[in-house]
């Protein structure tokens, strides 16, 4: 397949479909995380500066936590999402599509050091471009991947018109194509609808708006609306 969907078979015998997230949304998520970390750091350092040397020690602990601990804690305890990933609807998942666990999260976040190598994520960028699932090196070795969270639905309905049987028997694939066309119709411009419907004029025997109406009528029949 040419797209970035990775299919994983579950024990129930169905496939999960994971939409791999590319370099750009991940870079945006990282920037948001970076801004949050910098903000926390400044917010903590100002009162700590008043405490003198001991405060600097606590400040160093905060720097450590922000550098190394933040991502791991977010990923393991908050469903594979740092705040930046949450903002961009990304999620880190394990090799089997299940939520990420502690050790893989540690692997991918420690190996970030290598992905960051020549300056600004050079190795990581090349790795995401080469890998079919857009994983950076840390993800490859941890066996994890970053996916888009797709939880909302299109909610398109086939417009209800009087059903009409197609003139000849259609294969299941052909049926699915006609129903999908009818579902997407409300989203398309009338010109595009006509253009697509004209491709099927051998079947509908009509062109233009009449062809579109006929295909929607076929779809109603195929859906079982008598």
């Amino acid at each position, binding site marked *: 397949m040419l797209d970035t969907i990775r299919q994983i078979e*579950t024990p*129930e*015998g*169905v496939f*999960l*479909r994971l939409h791999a997230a590319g370099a750009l949304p991940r870079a945006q998520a990282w920037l948001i995380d970076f801004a949050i970390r910098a903000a926390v750091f400044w917010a903590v350092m100002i009162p700590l500066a008043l405490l*003198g*040397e*001991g*405060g*600097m*020690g*606590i*400040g*160093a*602990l905060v*720097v*450590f936590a922000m*550098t*190394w601990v933040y991502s791991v804690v977010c990923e*393991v*305890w908050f*469903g594979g999402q740092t705040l930046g990933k949450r903002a961009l609807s990304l999620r880190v998942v394990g090799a*089997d*599509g*299940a*939520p990420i*666990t*502690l*050790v*893989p999260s*540690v*692997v991918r976040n*420690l*190996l*970030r*050091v*290598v992905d960051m190598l020549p300056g600004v994520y050079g190795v990581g960028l090349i790795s995401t471009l080469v890998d079919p699932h857009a994983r950076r*090196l840390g993800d*490859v*070795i*941890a*066996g994890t991947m970053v996916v888009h969270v*797709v939880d909302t*639905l*299109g909610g*398109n*309905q*086939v417009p209800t018109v009087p059903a009409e049987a197609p003139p000849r028997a259609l294969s*299941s*694939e052909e*049926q*699915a194509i006609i*129903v*999908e066309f009818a*579902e997407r119709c409300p989203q398309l411009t009338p010109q595009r609808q006509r253009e697509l419907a004209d491709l099927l004029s051998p079947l509908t025997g009509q062109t233009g708006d009449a062809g579109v109406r006929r295909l929607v009528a076929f779809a109603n029949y*195929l*859906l*079982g*609306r008598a």
Partner: protein
Amino acid sequence: MKQERFVALHGSDWDTLESWLRQVEARPQRTMRSPEAVSFPADYRRLCHHLALARARGYSREVTERLQRIVDRGHRLLYRPPAPRWRRMANFLIAGFPRLVRKEWRYMALAAALLYVPALICLLLVTFRPEFAHNVFGSTQLAEFERMYDPANRHIGRNSGTDLGMFGYYIMNNVGIAFRTFASGLVVGIGAVYVLAMNGVIFGALAGHLDNIGYGAPFWRFVVAHASFELTAIVIAGGAGLRLGLTLLAPGRQRRGPAMVEAGWIGAQLALGAFAMLVAAAFIEAFWSSVASFPDWLKYGSAMALWVLVGWWLLRGGAGESRGT
């Protein structure tokens, strides 16, 4: 069965399951205790069945995508890993980690050699040819070190700073170095070799130089206690990095991909153990090593006890139990 009838028949089940899943995501604790939670696995598997049917019968995207998304959510919940438990972490530190270190002893021995052999060579070189110290350090650095370990200091091993301040600094600095040592090992081991050998050279040359100018006593009094945890942790982190890099070069009788995943898994566990050791080392370094007023027998006695403890823990820890728990 036509699609419309299929949806009419089962649509309400899907809606119920979906709204329940949304509730779980909003407030997991309370929803998981509700009676509906008991029937979730069965409901979820029925939904998977419906998805398989819908795909096989060529139903439209609206239906298959809708089912697919509920399945994705259900999978996330059903196959959710258990939350990490303190007890398991403690078990890992006491037994699992030493076992892992012993299992990977070849890499540990290599890392130890990369740290201690340069250290020993530099120590001997500087002892017999004192001017060699100037090849390793700049003169400002040497002056800095001499000030840190001046026997007249009340605090040894540092110029300024309170105990708490130095504790935070040690954590940030040393754990950061250990983590980078491990990660940079991925570059065919070069990063790990560099960090280990470099630390060895600095440590050996510094010890030799301070011995030469008569500051040896405060130096050894300072380092000997926390070195037990600190040097061993650096060796372990370096060994984990070497394992990563050498597995990349020679994966053995395995494909490179799975071999790297395994090396990463082991390396991360070793790095976590090294992290715990370095926290212990930072405690000792900040609150115990720096106190100049303790008598020699207390300093060296406690250091001896710590070295024995570390050695015994790594060599014998978890040996009594059956493996694979």
